Structure formats: C-alpha cells, structure tokens
C-alpha cells in the first residue's frame, strides 16, 4: 500500500453507468448488422411457420414459435463472438486503458451484449406477435405461460454467458470454432457422456444434462416441449426455474473466472 495519499489533482474513474452505456452503444454500432440479421431471420422463419399453421387449429402457433427459440440459442452462442470481435485478450489494450476497472470493463461489455441480445429477442418476438395477429392467432400468445417465455430468455442468456466466458478467456481464433462446437455438439455429447459415465458415477450423473438441475432443462425445456407440441399453458416454474437459476449462476461465474485471466498488453 502506498504511504502517501493520492495527489489532489487525481481525477475520478469513469462512473459505471457511463462506462456501461458506452459499451452498449459501441456494441450496438459494431454488431447491429448481425443483430438485425437475427431479427430478420427469426421473423422470416415465423412468417413461414405462420403460413404452415394458417387455418390449422390443431397446432398452436405460439408453442411452435417458442420452438423457434432454438434459433435464438444458436444466435446467443454466436453473439459473444460479435461482442468480442477483434478483442481477444491480447487485443484489449484500448479497453483496458480506459479509466474503468479491468474486470468491470469486461463485465460491462458482457452485460451490454446480453442487454442487446435480449432486446433483439424481444423485438423478434414482437414481430412474431404481429405476424400471429395478422393470421388471427394472437390470443395463443397470452395463453402461453409467462414462465415459458422467461425460460427462453434465460436459456439464451445462459448460452450467451457461457459463450462469453469462452470469448473473454480464449486467445486464438479457435474460440469461434470452440463456441460453435459447444453449441452443435455439447447437447448430444452431454447426453452421451452421462450415459457412458453412468456406471462410474452412479447414482444419477445425467443431472448434468437432463436432471432436475440439468443444462437441457435450463436452456431448452420450453423449446423441447414446444417441439413436442405440448401446450405451454401449464409450463410452471417448478419445471424449469431451479435449473435455470442454477445454470445462470454457473454461467455468470464462468464469465467472472474468465475475466480474471490477465494478459500483459
């Protein structure tokens, strides 16, 4: 600790709300095209789906739309790569030269990316609602449990945060591949792995993936049920909330751990 007090003309560090808002505008400026592409693709898919269910009372449009959130999970896994584009740990001299604490700067950028991701998700769903309204099925949206919608949002947040931890900590361009592999192969691998380890880890290693606190339940339960054409009106927090909060905490902790990795610049 320094013996002397700071000099009188020492300036104040950037207030967090300013630093956060600037990270938000920066990511929006750098990633709006990708975000717009996601919203457009999601909307186009919803429009196609609307045409397929039009006049068919058997299928719930809203359930199917929640099934469409698989697209959101895909985007959420890739979005950290946009947020941290050209900002590998060795390319962060500018970010880390700002009068903001290093960990806070990283956390604010991750948070700003999450805010925009969920903002894009809300916009995409608003567009989908308008599409539903045009085919006379807007009422199905209100019939779906709010927890089903929340599950989609939290699921996307979990995937995004895990992807962010990879992007924050990883140096090589291979992180892109790693993140994509994570998304594409992790679910089946995580399904297989518990099976292969069942003998060694009894009882119940499958919880990692599809147990009460499983990753599958946390991120994709609503999607899976929608794909099975299960009406989501009865989707309750008990189905999903513990797993969602558990994995959200793990994902946030991973980001925290990743941000502690320090590279000399």
């Amino acid at each position, binding site marked *: 600790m*320094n013996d002397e007090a700071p*000099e009188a003309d*020492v*300036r*104040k560090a950037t207030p967090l709300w300013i630093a956060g808002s600037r990270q938000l505008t920066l990511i929006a400026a750098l990633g709006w095209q990708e975000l717009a592409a996601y919203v457009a693709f999601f909307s186009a898919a919803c429009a196609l789906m609307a045409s397929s269910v039009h006049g068919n009372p058997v299928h719930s449009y809203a359930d199917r739309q929640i099934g469409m959130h698989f697209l959101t999970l895909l985007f959420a896994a890739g979005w950290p790569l946009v947020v941290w584009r050209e900002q590998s740990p060795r390319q962060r*001299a500018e970010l880390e*030269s700002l009068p903001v604490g*290093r960990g806070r700067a990283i956390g604010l950028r991750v948070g700003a990316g999450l805010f925009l991701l969920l903002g894009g998700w809300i916009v995409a769903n608003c567009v989908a609602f308008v599409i539903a309204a045009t085919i006379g099925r807007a009422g199905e949206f209100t019939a779906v449990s709010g927890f089903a919608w929340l599950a989609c949002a939290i699921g996307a947040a979990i995937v995004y945060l895990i992807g962010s931890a990879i992007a924050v900590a990883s140096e090589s361009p291979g992180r892109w591949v790693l993140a994509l592999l994570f998304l594409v192969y992790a679910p089946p691998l995580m399904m297989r792995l518990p099976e292969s380890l069942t003998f060694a880890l009894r009882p119940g290693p499958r919880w990692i993936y599809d147990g009460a606190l499983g990753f599958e339940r946390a991120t994709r339960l609503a999607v899976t049920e929608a794909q099975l054409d299960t009406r989501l009106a009865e989707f309750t927090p008990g189905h999903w909330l513990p797993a969602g909060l558990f994995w959200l905490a793990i994902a946030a902790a991973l980001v925290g751990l990743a941000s502690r990795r320090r590279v000399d610049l």
Partner: protein
Amino acid sequence: MMANRIPPFVVDRPAVATHDLTKRWGMQVVLDRAEMRVPRGAFYLLAGANGAGKSTLLRILMDLVRPNAGRADVLGIDPQRAAATARASIGYVPANPSLPPNRLALARKLEYLAAHYMAWDAAYATELLQALSVPLQRPARSSTPSEAQRFRWVAALAHRPPLLLLDEPFAGLDDASRDTALALLTDHLATIDTTVILATHDLGAAASLADHFGILREGRFEMQARLDTLLEHIHRYRVAIDGGWQPPSALGQATLTRTDGEREIEWIVWGPQAWAAEAFRAGGGTVTDVETLPAAEALRAVLRKKGSAG
C-alpha cells in the same frame, strides 16, 4: 571515478516513482529492480535502446502489464490497486498505436473515448483534431498508422491530464505532423501543470523540451538526473595535437565519443571541464575549443557508451 559522477536529483514527492520494479518475459528480464523518480511537473525523457524496457515500464504505470516484483506509484496511487483512478489522470500514447480494425468511424470512436473522461474538453479536442488533421469519417480499420498515431495524440491530450505517458509518440509521423504534435505538447505544458514521461530511442524530437532524463539499459536505470546537470558535465573538446601526443589514460572511461585526426582530435568527454582540460594538457594536447552539447547529442553520446554513468 568520482569526477564522472553527477548528482542525482532529490524528489520529495514524485509524480511517478517505481520501487524495485522487476518484470520478466519468460526467462528474459525486461526490468531489473528499476527505480524511477519523476518529479512533479517534470518533462522526463526516458531514453534507452530498443528493448531496454521503456514500453514495459510505461505499461506497468498504466496497469496494462503486471510486474513480477516491486511496485509503482502514480500520482500517489498504486496502479495495481486502483488502475481506473490512475488512468483517469493519465494521457497515454502507446507505442505502435494501431486501432481495433472495426468499422467504427474515428469520430464515433472519439466520442466513445471522450465519454470515459470526466474532464474531457470537447472544444480543445476539436482544436487538436483540426491541428493534427485527423480524418474523422474514416473507419478505424482503414486508418493508416500515422492517422492512428495522431488520433492517439488527440485522445491523450483532450482530457488535459496531469500526467502524460508518451511511448515513442512521434513514430510514424511525418515531419509536419511531428512538429504540430510538439507544438501542441508545448501549448499543453504552458497551460496545464503536467508531468510528462516521454519514452523514446529517437532523442531528436523531444530533447529540447525535457528537463529531466533517465537512461534505461537492460532493464535498469543507469542514470537519472536533471538535463541541465548532464549538460554541465559533458563537453566536446577540440584539441590540437602533435607528434608527442599520448591519449591520456585518465580520460579513458570518461570519453564518450572520439574523432581522431592527425593534427586535431575531437572528443566528447564526461566530467568537469577543468579536469578534462588538464588531462588533455598532460597528454601533450592543447585544447582549442570547448563546446556545450545540445541535449539530444549529449544524451546520444551517453547512450552509446555503456557504463558511462557514474
């Protein structure tokens, strides 16, 4: 040799100080218990060859690099403990200041940086931008190294910081831009009570502004002093010689450079003038001219001679 020593300056309350600062990159020791003292309000020229550890030292002051041992003190703040507060008071021009290769226009980029500094002076920033001809509409990824360097100058000065860390700030600038940057720096120093640490191996541009210097060699401070004290101790001697001339052994270590002719020699010697003149006379020469060196040339002479510092 006592005659060759120059007195270190005494600093009661340095703007920047380092204590036993050590940094290793793998097996290579970049800084070896470096002890720097920069007085408040000084223009401190941090000189050294490429690889001497200058950039690493400045990055440690910014907390972009963590030392293996020792600590730094920046305006009374330990940057390892309160980096954000320290950085708020620092204007930093990094070496090789490439900009992140994204599509953000430099104007937007400057807005982004400006928002982080509570003391950002927008009117002053506009003056700096115009003076340095920064192309604001150009995307960062299309900017040239010179444009990036000029942009960094603006970003460093526009919040009128009490401490400037300039790491090879003229690299990549053409002569006109370098002169403009120097003029802006001079104006800045005239209006703000600023401490400057300028690290460079190119001493020509900034030596005229400096009042203190430090020579970093292989990670250690070989010398730190006031520049005027250095200039009092280094002179160029022109000495008429004849057949009886014997190079005086007393001047051996004190001779920084030598140009020998048949009838005249021209040596730059470190040490008191009377002592050197007497040594020349003892060798059979006649001192015909003694010249005080310009600051840049004096520093170059010291830099070239390893172990010249007392």
